[in-house]
């Protein structure tokens, strides 16, 4: 397996959808290739960072601009 193929199957590997035989090849390559290992780690970090950054329950997502509140309430009385 080459680095390019590994990059192609990364998503299936991460989600556990890679068939067992491909998985073995994949992990063998990973154990030998630091660069691909690094890439895999960063791919997973990217997914996690996205989830954390967009967590709608975090405090920084709590506020709504006043003019939008007013616009919503005004639109309601018009309907």
């Amino acid at each position, binding site marked *: 397996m*080459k*680095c*390019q*193929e590994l*990059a192609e199957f*990364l*998503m299936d590997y991460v989600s556990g959808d890679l068939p067992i035989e491909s998985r073995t090849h994949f992990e063998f390559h990973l154990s030998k290739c630091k*660069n*691909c290992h*690094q*890439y895999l*780690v*960063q*791919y997973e*970090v*990217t*997914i*996690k*960072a*996205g*989830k*954390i*950054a*967009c967590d*709608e*329950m*975090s405090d*920084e*997502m*709590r*506020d*709504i*601009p*006043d003019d*939008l*509140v007013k*616009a*919503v*309430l005004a*639109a*309601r009385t018009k*309907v």
Partner: protein
Amino acid sequence: MASATPVDDEAALIAQLRAGDEAAYEQVVRAYGGRLLAVARRIVGTEEDARDVVQDAFLNAFKSFARFEGTAKLSTWLHRIVVNAALMKLRTRKRKPEQSIESMLPSFLDDGHHEERFQSWDEPVDKVMERKEARELVRQQIDALPEGYRTVLVLRDIEGLDTEETAKVLGLSVNATKIRLHRARQALRTLLAPHFRSAAS
């Protein structure tokens, strides 16, 4: 910006809404609007459209409070309405020419090796993401993804829809959805790399 008022007693609030209490409507918008705006912003990508989406979603919700069943949480119910409104917005707005993602994907040498040597991201992601600037940066980079890829990434990785649902709401094949998700994640990794490297050094 107004600070959101937390809702202590959802059942009481719902009863007030059904009774047509003006103050209750305002309380709902203030308590949930910010989070819904954040969800809409991620899906539609622009502030202006996100505001339209939130407004449409609230109007829809206000009209159908009668159908709201107390078994679901109000926040969950509103969340679903805003996601639907955002997807509707995507479908009805003029499609922009598809931006290419190629330049954000890894490149390979003829022998199949990566062209780039990846430098390590040493700091644990949980630690990096404790910083407000890091969270803002990641959100900006998600917004910088080409639209057709950003929407797949947001629906799959952030909203938690499965591949089939995502494919259906975006009118894509399951296979195209998988390819887009993988490319979107790779592109986001490329966009984060310069920042995550420097954060570690």
